[in-house]
């Protein structure tokens, strides 16, 4: 029983991690709570659904298509809601990204309606048994894609030149610019990467929950925020681990304590972390004031 719950927790946590990675990347380079990130996740799910049902793509085509569409959306977001907005006022980019959230959500409500749409079965369902644990093929697919994506991203951030530029910008804008990093370009690339990953996460969520709605973004956004904080603001590997951890905590508390208390637990964790360990579980830098 407990092993089964741990596997379920990993499943839930994997999508939290993918959303939180984008959040934490963007927070790192801009010090901005990018509210619209949850809606990017929602757009990814709908693009994936459209590619599967209307364009006859396979699941890999849907994943790649959603990634590209969301990356484009990230570029649009930078040019519409981030760059033109004054940088010296901390609340202005927050409000403009809230505006973008409202626009994206309601464009989909307008065209699709507020109801849930079911996500077609794209992977043939077979159940595998490993001792006490039962996993379906779609669960394995989601987990493998999520973990390999995170591994790739980790390699990119830690070992590529661009990844180093992103980390330098996150540490200090001015110093990075002085050392020859094109900060504007780094911000754009961060948005492309974060949004693309959120798009993939959206499709994976569709496969896993088998239905999607225009309102799925808000929940993902709030959970992503908690995970980002748990992992430490701006800490990418921290967000990966914290997402899996939060998923497991939620599933275990739902299984052994009660389903209504599940959300209570994640928010209690949020508050405890804020009060006693604001640097996150892995002790990264703190951001004063902003």
């Amino acid at each position: 029983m407990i092993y089964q719950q741990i596997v379920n927790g990993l499943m839930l946590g994997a999508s939290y991690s993918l959303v939180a990675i984008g959040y934490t990347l963007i927070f790192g380079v801009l010090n901005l709570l990018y509210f619209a990130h949850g809606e990017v996740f929602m757009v990814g799910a709908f693009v994936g659904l459209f590619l599967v049902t209307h364009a006859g793509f396979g699941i890999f085509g849907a994943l790649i298509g959603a990634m590209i569409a969301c990356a484009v959306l990230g570029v649009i977001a930078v040019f519409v809601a981030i760059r033109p907005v004054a940088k010296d006022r901390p609340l202005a980019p927050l409000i403009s990204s809230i505006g973008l959230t409202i626009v994206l959500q309601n464009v989909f409500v307008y065209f699709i309606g507020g109801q849930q749409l079911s996500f077609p079965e794209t992977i043939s369902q077979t159940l595998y048994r490993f001792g006490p644990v039962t996993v379906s093929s779609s669960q394995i697919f989601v987990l493998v894609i999520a973990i390999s994506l995170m591994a790739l991203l980790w390699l990119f951030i830690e070992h590529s030149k661009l990844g180093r530029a992103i980390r330098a910008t996150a540490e200090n804008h001015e110093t990075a610019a002085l050392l020859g990093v094109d900060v504007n370009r780094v911000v754009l690339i961060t948005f492309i990467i974060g949004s693309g990953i959120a798009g993939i996460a959206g499709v994976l969520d569709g496969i896993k929950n088998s239905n999607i709605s225009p309102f799925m973004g808000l929940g993902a956004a709030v959970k992503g925020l908690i995970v980002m904080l748990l992992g430490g603001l701006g800490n990418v590997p921290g967000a990966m681990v914290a997402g899996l951890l939060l998923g497991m905590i939620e599933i275990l508390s739902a299984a052994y304590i009660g389903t209504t208390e599940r959300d209570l637990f994640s928010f209690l964790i949020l508050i405890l972390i804020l009060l006693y360990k604001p640097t996150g579980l892995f002790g990264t830098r703190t951001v004063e004031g902003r």
Partner: protein
Amino acid sequence: MLGGWIDNYTQSVLIFTGINIIAAYSFFAPFKTGQVSLGQAGFMAVGAYASAVLTQKFGFPFIVSLPVAGLFAGIVGVMVGFPALRIRGVYLLLLTLGFAEIVQVIVLSWDYVGGAQGYRNIPFNPNTLGYVAVVIIALIVFFGRLERASLGRAMDSIHQDETAAEAMGIDVVRIKLFAFGAGAVIAGIAGGLYAHQATYIDSTTFNVMLAVEILTYVVVGGGSTYWGPLAGATVLTLLPEFLRTLREWLELVPVAWTDFFPMNRIYDFLYGFLDFENAKRLIVYGLILILMMIVRPDGLVTRDSLMRLHFLRWTARHA
């Protein structure tokens, strides 16, 4: 009261605008010391449920239950504000967001106040418009006096630089706690007024989006003066009414002007878009938020624009 010469629809629009203005002031009070809270919807929920329980289950009159609800929300506010003193910025934003979410979960799972079915049959208060007007006037007078009082100046100095304020001998802890508690009292009153106007509340009434809307009222209106929350909440709440008026104006355009190819398509599109449907209204609302932050990031009413107004009046008087 007033019911004689205002139709019901206008009256309810005015009431909800007023409640939004009060909610905007509840955000403004802690914001004056630099604390950005996403928990005001949570305090509204506390006030709304407290007032509803007092009137419906214990039979208190509304005039008693409303201040008690405000006070109760204030006590909760001080309890939240105390740990919140240690953190600021993004961390405070997330802490207050977490508080509001916890309030929602508690309301959802507590059967005494209706649980998932929501709280039904809250006594309707026919004089809400009067109450709202009195509260708003009181708030404007309060914040207007505060602007010139030493307490208000102390709050502004904390907003600008907390360390410097502390070095000047200002009791930062007490003033920040007071500001947070005052914001919670105001939010509780707004929630109480809402509950007895809508007569039905549930856990989703006071959700994250409401907290975000309250934040946008103040930022769009302008957070540097006490007229900002009033301006922001009024403009943003009445925006859909304004959009509908735009459609009536559109009907006044002569047919001959729009009866050829590109114009008739544009006209039809605009006409179709400007109806009262929620999704379209919200799309426009979101676009206006983005545009506002590009064009006027300090909000509609700023210290500068008020100064200019004062200067004009001064020159007119002394010309």
